[in-house]
């Protein structure tokens, strides 16, 4: 793992908001013919710069909907969501796309890399939609891959990489436009336990360096590596508490057996 010495990859932006995410009583419902499904029934959260939050909850608890709204993929039906002071619910689709591109980095459970496209090109992809020159985009992509410890595999295709490596590529892709926040949706769901901890080690190091991370998971084992856990149930926040005595992934790894036979 390369040392994290990329302050530029932290949140950028003129005004330094200490509060990155401010959610006030948001609701989300879907009208399915006659019935109305309430996915969120009034959630309020404030997340500050440099936090590492785990959002927990069983399926149907509303955590995915919440995550989609945080990621500007969806708009709340009611309530206010401010991302670095910007009222997201008032933006057009095009502006939302720009926000996703500049301020948010996504990491998904299924990695979601483009196949037959090298690691480098996958990581470069978000820079293509930003006003960044090709040279600059490529430079940033190399740096981001270096940062997640894949500097020597930039020309590999996803099919030539292990699950953990693919997820690192996805993390690099999420970081390449220097977002304000990293949103990870079940990032370890498809990984074995050792690789999961390795990914969490990456997250912890990025967070130590100042990156704000929101992690969605239903596994308490994973959530304990964060600094704060928010529990969803039935579309509402049930618990919101700091994590006491969180383990360091790098320490945990030392005591885990390597899977090499």
């Amino acid at each position, binding site marked *: 793992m390369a040392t994290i010495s990329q302050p530029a990859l932290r949140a950028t932006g003129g005004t330094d908001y200490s509060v990155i995410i401010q959610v006030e009583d948001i609701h989300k419902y879907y009208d399915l013919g006659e019935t109305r499904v309430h996915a969120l029934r009034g959630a309020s959260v404030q997340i500050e710069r440099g936090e590492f939050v785990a959002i927990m909850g069983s399926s149907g608890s509303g955590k995915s909907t919440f995550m*989609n709204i945080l990621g500007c*993929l969806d708009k709340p039906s009611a309530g206010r969501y401010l991302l670095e002071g910007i009222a997201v619910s008032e933006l057009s689709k095009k502006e939302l796309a720009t926000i*996703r591109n*500049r301020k948010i980095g996504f990491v*998904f459970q299924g990695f*979601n890399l*483009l196949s037959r496209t090298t690691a480098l090109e996958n990581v470069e992809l*978000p820079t293509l*939609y*930003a006003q960044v020159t090709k040279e600059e985009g490529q430079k940033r992509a190399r740096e981001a891959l270096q940062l997640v410890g894949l500097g020597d595999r930039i020309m590999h295709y996803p099919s030539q990489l292990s699950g953990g490596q693919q997820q690192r590529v996805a993390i690099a892709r999420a970081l390449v436009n220097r977002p304000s926040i990293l949103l990870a949706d079940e990032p370890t769901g498809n990984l074995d336990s050792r690789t999961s901890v390795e990914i969490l080690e990456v997250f912890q190091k990025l967070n130590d360096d100042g990156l704000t991370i929101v992690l969605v998971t239903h596994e308490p084992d994973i959530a304990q590596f964060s600094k704060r856990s928010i529990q969803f149930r039935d579309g509402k926040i049930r618990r919101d508490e700091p994590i006491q005595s969180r383990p360091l992934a790098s320490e945990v790894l030392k005591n885990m057996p390597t899977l090499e036979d």
Partner: protein
Amino acid sequence: MDLMQIIRIAMRALARNKLRSSLTMLGIIIGVGAVIAMVSVGQGAQKQAEDQIAAMGSNMLFVSAGTVTRGGTRMGYGATKTLLYEDMQAILRECAAVKAAAPGSQSSAQVVFENDNWATQINGTEPQYFDIRTWPFAEGSSFSKDDVAMAANVAVIGETVRKNLFGATDPVGQTIRISNLPFRVVGVLMPKGTSAAMGQDQDDIILVPITTLQKKITGQNWLRWIMVSATSRDASYTAQQQITALLRDRHRIRPGQDDDFFVRNLADMADLADQQARLFTILLASIASISLLVGGIGIMNIMLVSVTERTREIGICMAIGATEGDVQQQFLIEAVVLSLLGGAVGILLGMTTSYLITQTLGWPVLVSPTAIVTAVVFSMAVGIFFGFYPARKAARLDPIEALRYE
């Protein structure tokens, strides 16, 4: 994102499914190829018609004896006996736009040389006829003015007649029998081929002095036609008016009464032939366009499949910041790349086909740059038109749904 980048990504997407992409392209290849080949054939025909008219002399006018109605029976052109040698002299004297004129009278007869015989058209005229029609001699020369004055038994024969009567024998100096009269062959005309305007074999003809034909064969003193050449192509319309006015006056035709003669302007006929050839081209091109249309539908079909297949990829791109416009543009460019590549190969196919048509069928073919430019523009338009709906569909996807798509 700059255009090169988009094209690069589009190429990669197309390369992912090489067989499918090339089959889709095949539709456009055949469409564009067919359009180019058909337009080339059509334009070749048009060019040939124009060349033939030009060879006939586009400043030529053909005055023919008109129709007459006798007891309710209309006799057809050439039935009147009112067109006379004096009319021709008057035309030469009084019509300023006329440069030269030659009289003509016509008959048909069985012609015999040794053991061969052949039925053909016998035309009586004067030597200037060959100049007016710009009809050169392959062998020998025209009969002279003296021959006309003396009603000499001399004949000029066309290529078809030569082939049928003489074969390998040199006809000049030989004697043939027309209606049992001996005629000495003085010249053989260069082949002119089938006339584009009238569709008849112009070489199946024998020309003799008009006096000989009138006095010794038909016994008629009226003319069947007068061949006139105007001073220029533009003057041919003036000449037509002047001749019409003069002949009406000479034949004492009252206003409102029909002409007893008929003036055909070859410039008119050239226009007509041109128009027909153009119509032919349009017809061929529109039939070929149908295959281009089918090719376009193929593109649309494959793009729709592709959008469905790549739903997840579209979702990823949207999540990392692609706008609707970006996605739409990407798929549209992909369709255009597909159709343009197909168009490029189609041009090659069309040109090859045109070449083969010329080689095997012997048709005149003209591959015009216009047809090629049109084909390129057309295939691009097909790509945009048929790529638009699938691209729109891709752009309208909901990113959350798209990311969840399996």
